[in-house]
């Protein structure tokens, strides 16, 4: 019985918001909806950085697209008083992630930097995590993908390619985080604000995306979290996301 008690005790602790604040880093992204133009540069940047396969027309027709970050589009109103609003949607790296609790083999887990990580070679493809993710940001490899030669020469050697039967999703460019941590360690310091930028953040032309460490109160991302426009998508689900959105400002016509 004591095993169960231990397990529940640590589980309780683990699910408590703020648990990750005790660790060195708590990686967080903020998305300013008042800046985002829906241009999609982040999508292609991510696809290039993370070896995301080109799935082809038929796969997309069957709802099997793979891009880890997508731009959701919502129309509001009718012509001529019509608005189109955009929101970049990616894994929210929830501190209380529903996807993690359902994986029978713990292929998806929370690492000590506040990242929701995916262990590809542990994943057995039950796809339960995708069902439980309220943000619909998990993508399943229904096929083995290939790159028409020599497109494979572009593949990023810092990121593994995934096989059929494996779930994948945004990793906050963990390879870049790891590299920044290595450099910082060699120099005997903490990773500083601005040392690491995921691919989407780096390319975004409007600077809508900001990435950093929530545990550092002076980081840019911490500041954006104090912005009065800050909110979490589907916050009523209590997933404690690590992605913060800043409300879009809509002015009356003047």
């Amino acid at each position, binding site marked *: 019985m004591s095993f169960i008690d231990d397990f529940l005790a640590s589980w309780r602790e683990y699910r408590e918001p703020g648990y990750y604040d005790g660790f060195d880093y708590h990686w967080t992204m903020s998305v300013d909806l008042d800046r985002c133009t829906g241009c*999609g540069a982040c999508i292609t940047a991510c696809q290039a950085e993370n070896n995301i396969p080109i799935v082809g027309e038929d796969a997309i027709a069957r709802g099997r697209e793979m891009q880890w970050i997508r731009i959701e589009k919502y129309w509001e109103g009718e012509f001529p008083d019509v608005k189109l609003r955009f929101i970049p949607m990616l894994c929210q790296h929830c501190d209380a992630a529903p996807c993690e609790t359902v994986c029978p083999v713990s292929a998806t887990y929370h690492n000590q930097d506040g990242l929701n990580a995916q262990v590809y070679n542990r994943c057995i493809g039950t796809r339960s995590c995708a069902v439980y993710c309220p943000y619909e940001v998990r993508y399943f490899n229904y096929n083995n993908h290939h790159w028409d030669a020599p497109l494979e020469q572009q593949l990023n050697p810092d990121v593994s390619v995934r096989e059929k039967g494996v779930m994948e999703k945004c990793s906050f460019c963990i390879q870049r985080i790891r590299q920044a941590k290595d450099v910082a360690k060699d120099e005997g310091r903490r990773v500083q604000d601005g040392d690491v930028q995921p691919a989407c953040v*780096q390319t975004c032309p409007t600077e809508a995306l900001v990435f950093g460490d929530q545990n550092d109160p002076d980081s840019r991302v911490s500041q954006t979290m104090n912005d009065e426009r800050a909110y979490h998508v589907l916050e009523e689900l209590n997933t404690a996301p690590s992605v913060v959105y800043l*409300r879009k400002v809509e002015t009356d016509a003047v």
Partner: protein
Amino acid sequence: MASIDRRDFLKLVGAGGVGTGAGFMLREAIKHPVENLVPYPVPPEDFSPGIATWYNTVCSMCSAGCGITVRTREGRAKKIEGNPSHPVSQGRLCARGQAGLQVLYNPDRVTTPLQQTGERGSGDWLPLTWTEGLSQISGRLGELRSSGQGGAVCLLSEGQRGHMHGLFEQFMANIGSDRLVYYDYDHPHPLLAAMNRLFGTSELPYFDLGNTDYLVSFGADYLGSWLSPVHHGLGFGRSRQGRDHHRGRFVQIEPRMTLSGAAADEWIAAIPGTEGIIALAMANRIVSQGGYQGDDADAWAAALEPYSADAVAEQTGVAAETIARVADTFAGTGPSLAIGGDGAGRHSNGVDALTAITALNYLAGNLGIEGGLIFNPEPVAGQGAAARHASYRSMLELAEDAREGRIQVLIVNQANPVFTMPAAAGIGEALARIPLIVSLSSFMDETTAMADLILPSHTYLEAWGDDFPEPGVGFRAGAISQPVVSPLYDTRDTGDTLLAVAAAVNPDGALTAATTEEYLREQWRAIFERDAPTEEGTAQAQEAIAAETVEAAAEVVAQAAPEDDAAADAPANAEAAVAQVAPAEGAVATNPDPAGWMPDAFDEFWNSLLRAGVWGENTRAEQGPVTVDASVIDAIGVDAPEFAGSSETYPFILQPYLSLNMHDGSGANLPWMQELPDPLTSVVYGSWLEINPETARELGLRDGDLVDVESPQGTISVPVLTFPAIMPNVVAMPVGQGHSEFGRYASGRGANPIEILAPQVEPETGSLAWNATRVRLNPTGRRANLVRTSGLSRDLGRGIIQTTATGEAEEHASTKLRSIPITVEPA
């Protein structure tokens, strides 16, 4: 690393401690160490497995000229990022710029010289060696030149700028021909003509979006495909939320919502071709309300008299109150900015319309000020390139010359007029009359497929070049393109091919460089030597270099430019200042004095240029008062747009637009761009026709129904897609798909709206009025495969995208981030 914004960049330039007017360098500010002074192909000794190396070069996926930095590992290009030091991109990049890697590693590249052995267009290609290929073309050109027929040689290229333009010019001079023609579908002829008419300048101006408080865009999709989308994106973001609660507002006036329209605070639907008339009504309002007090106010009042808001409301489809309100805000907000782009300029009244729109900046006092329209200095190289840009009309003349046998040899370089000209132009059939067509393109596109001989060029990531961005950023800036990987295939630098041909045809010609790199070095040496600084400059720079610390350099910089703001900003800019001053030792060292303290100074300078990926110069023109000629004011006016086809037979106006992914079709062979959901419709891998939902309902059309779109010139079949933000009598379609050639990802996919455009031109520039064709829709009863990424298009009250109104922040403060404690009960 902090990204520099334009203002800092300008201050940096203004504070230049290295002698007055001297060219300066910005060392790359990227965090990854760039250890390479020379590109990969030359010294492989810096090749360390597992260590990424970054090279700076220039994006050529559109004409904006963003500086980029390419990450390579083990000699392969892995990722492209914006170059943080480059004033255009400032570390950022658009989706197409990201996809440049798929140009380099595209499986459908032409990998070796080829000769067409069957009928033209038969696709029977025989691989050749370069020696064979070059001797074929040189032989023919030599014959023509020695028989005095050099003039029958035409070089048709995508637009060239900077010193590459000079190389092309000299090549043609060597052959003895004046037929150097640049052709880009979206070259901004109408805007250049409007700038010239109003202000007598031949440069595109700098639109300072980042500092403007109120932007009115007439059909310019500045965030999507117009002129310099990355730079505009930067400005947009900063104006919106980068200025401490001082938020700029954006208005978009156009018949169909573009990406910029969606981003705007206010989107105003206007009848196609009436954008200029709306601008005149705004001008009328400003002048008649006393918002303009210049000496020529009376002349303006007289010229604008017929264009009251009430008078134009019906014609333009915009309510008089709306026009008056926007005009009042425009005049009453400073700085404001009016821009007009492709949507407004591609009509029979395009130049008049863009003149009217640009004139709003004159009336509201937005010229030459921060946040307004800033004039660009003449670029340091590439003068005369603008005059080479062919309009639709001049392309027709070229076609006529081809038909009449006045062109014996056509050399095509990356231009694809067979795809980007309407069928009505008959360009394909005209080019087929030319006895010898040689293509220097990297891909088998529609025009290259007609060639007899292909001498394939490197892609831009393997090639040399340089670039002075247009539009510039208010001061002179440029960058060198360098190879970031060794060539993948048996291809050559375009410049090298031309140099080799020139040397064979005319060994005594002026073009003596053996390679493009050598040619560029010669040209940059001239810039370097011109910038030989004064002695004080040298002393200061040496002091700064010797100081070598941020603080010390800041002091030197502050002293060198004792203006208040530079001094005040010195500490903030210090780090950048070190970067600025240190590499300038090269520039300083070009002391013409034989006892110069660094004999190989130019090499230093050149290597610094490659390393930095950017060069800049303090050339902000002193902006005196601008006056508009009285005759121009008198003549101001915009006629009603003319359309091909009668409104009875052809009830819809077709708006083909450049899509963000495909651009003019050159993006269609990149799988990432095919797979990137269209920003407004989420469609992938195909073409579609946007139609107002109400209209579609009346016609009984649903998403995915295949219709024949018929214009007076032809018919294409495409699926309809209801689009909530388009006028009822307008249909729109993205350009870019519908290739018959161009590789596995592009060919046989979708339809090309350019094909059915009527040959309607804007009379002054002769540019194609591509928004001026009427069409009718004939349902086919068939369905088509319209693939979109999944998801609902309405929020349905889920509150996924939340909004707030300015000034209401407190109300929302209570809904700030909160975390709800979770308790897990033990079982």
